[in-house]
């Protein structure tokens, strides 16, 4: 079982995000980055498959600047075998389509039985890359996967996904693209020996040119803004409770329009 795990580095959920004054993006100084949590599920699932079939490879595929090496190393420390890091200036503000293009090109060069993506990245929340990648590679795809069972002949998989109020069970031929959802597994922690071993594992650096790609973005953000500050509440003071209740109900109805 050879799995490609598409992995994105994103700001830590605990990081306080600030928008640049000119609204063109977020301030990246001092941000702590982590592996996109949904991609951690992917890494874990790929490792389990390799352990189960006692054969194969787990390859981490990442697009992003230099700092992403740390995320790849962390996945290698969890047990992945090697990494491919596409690092190209032209891709620094790439949209989901350009990323999918790059991933598709890199995946075609590599070969695979399975490709995992997180069902979305917690930074931009597009949730488009997995689906686009499957389209570009002409592969079947199952999104929001919470359980995966590969057939013994490794020709197909039975996959569970959450649907409103229940579960959907799907059989899908391999190779395919799966997007991981919370509940798929409990990702392991990198161990200290794992971290030491990761140092020696290989990370291939590639540029867009190496993949024969010129980034063709379809989307460009026009502006980033913070959510509006919460307005101060209104106080109704110095009145009888019965009177206050009346005024508040009226305000809820006509001003706040919640009742």
């Amino acid at each position, binding site marked *: 079982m050879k799995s490609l795990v598409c992995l994105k580095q994103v700001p830590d959920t605990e990081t306080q995000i600030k928008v640049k004054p000119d609204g063109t993006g977020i301030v990246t100084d001092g941000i702590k980055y982590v592996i996109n949590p949904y991609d951690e599920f992917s890494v874990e699932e790929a490792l389990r498959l390799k352990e189960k079939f006692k054969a194969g490879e787990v390859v981490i595929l990442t697009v992003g600047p230099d700092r992403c090496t*740390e995320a790849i*190393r*962390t996945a290698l*420390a969890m047990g992945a075998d090697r990494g491919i890091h596409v690092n190209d200036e032209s891709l620094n503000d790439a949209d989901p389509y350009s990323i999918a293009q790059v991933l598709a090109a890199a995946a075609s060069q590599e070969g695979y039985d399975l490709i995992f993506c997180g069902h979305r990245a917690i930074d931009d929340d597009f949730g488009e890359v997995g689906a686009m990648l499957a389209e570009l590679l002409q592969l079947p795809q199952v999104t929001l996967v919470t359980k995966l069972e590969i057939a013994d002949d490794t020709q197909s998989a039975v996959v569970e996904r959450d649907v409103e109020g229940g579960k959907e069970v799907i059989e899908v031929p391999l190779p395919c693209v799966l997007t991981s959802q919370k509940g798929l597994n409990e990702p392991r*922690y*990198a*161990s*200290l*020996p*794992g*971290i*030491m071993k*990761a*140092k020696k594992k290989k990370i291939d650096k590639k540029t867009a040119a190496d993949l024969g790609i010129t980034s063709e973005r379809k989307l460009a953000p026009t502006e980033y803004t913070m959510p509006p500050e919460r307005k101060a509440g209104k106080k109704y003071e110095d009145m009888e409770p019965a009177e206050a209740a009346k005024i508040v109900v009226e305000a809820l109805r006509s001003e706040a329009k919640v009742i």
Partner: protein
Amino acid sequence: MHFELTEEQRMLSDTVYKWALNELGPVQEKIDEEDWMPPNFFRDLGRLGVLGITVEERYGGLGMDVLTEVLVTEQLARICPGPAMSMVAHVELCASNIQRNASDYLKEKYLPPLIRGEKVGAMGLTEPNAGSDAMALRCRAVRNGNSFILNGSKMFITNGPIADIVLVYAKTAPDLGPKGISAFIVEKGAPGFSVSSKIKKAGMRGSPTAELNFDDCEVPAENLVGDLNGGVAVMTKGLDVERVVVAGLSLGISRQTLDYSIKYSREREQFGVPICEFQMIQAKLAEMYARYEASRNMIYRAACLAQGAGRGGKGTQITQLAAAAILYAAEAATRNGSDAVQIHGGYGYCLEFPVQKLWRDAKLLEIGAGTTEIRKMIIARELLRKGSI
């Protein structure tokens, strides 16, 4: 002089913090309230590979440096100083002392399960009537054929209630004073060895403490660690490293109390503004940070120095630095804990908020592994002996 952490050290710190946050964070209140240690604590740490950092690879360790061990201790202590202290007792007081002093036979027998976290380690030096004056210990060991027979008791032993392997100091030649002390490995279940029920403590809960009793307890002669009557050498050989690693517990507390305080002071509003806008709160945050950084620099430097120092102990640079690092860091953590409670006001004093727990936990580190007063005595002794720093 610079101590940039390596990429591996950073990754390890992040991983251990994340583990502590996810696995211990949700149960930290239970740990404190019920003085409860998560049952798989040592096995999980074994799986993370952090129980044998400085132990040689052939015994299952990683053969890495003291600073790495400090980092792990610091990160774990940020969330749960109690269990973190149990880890330090297991790793430093027990396993590392075995590695430094015991025969190959004992190392092969005891280190691998300790490092995998299958067995829990402890160290028994203190007695009901011998604390700071440890050399006055009264526990006796008498040779009897192929065994030693131990009689006496040990007080305040971290991991006592759960330990499988205890490094115990006893007098083998009482007339020789400090030169008549020897170290032994005593296994749980040894005939005549019993453990009192858990001692109730103000802090460091989740780290079980107990009194150990030896009543004609029979220990195989081969379990002697180091030379006969060479117990003091066993005790002191790793003492500097031990102080540096224990100081890591205080460091984690100093940092976490500050993090909580920054966050809370930005959120809590009084007089119509966040309390962090008051200069008196800002002054506290600044002082807390300065204490944290000063502790960190001393501890990391001592860790690097301890790594290079072949021999520590009396007359060496590392001895005074390690004692100063733990002295300062422990007081800094108590102070940070107290300031953090103050910044949190009434909420800080309530059990739902973790700052009061860190404050209670911090205090122990001015007492355990040598008191503040004893640490000062050591530093003064070194300075006065040399006549300069």
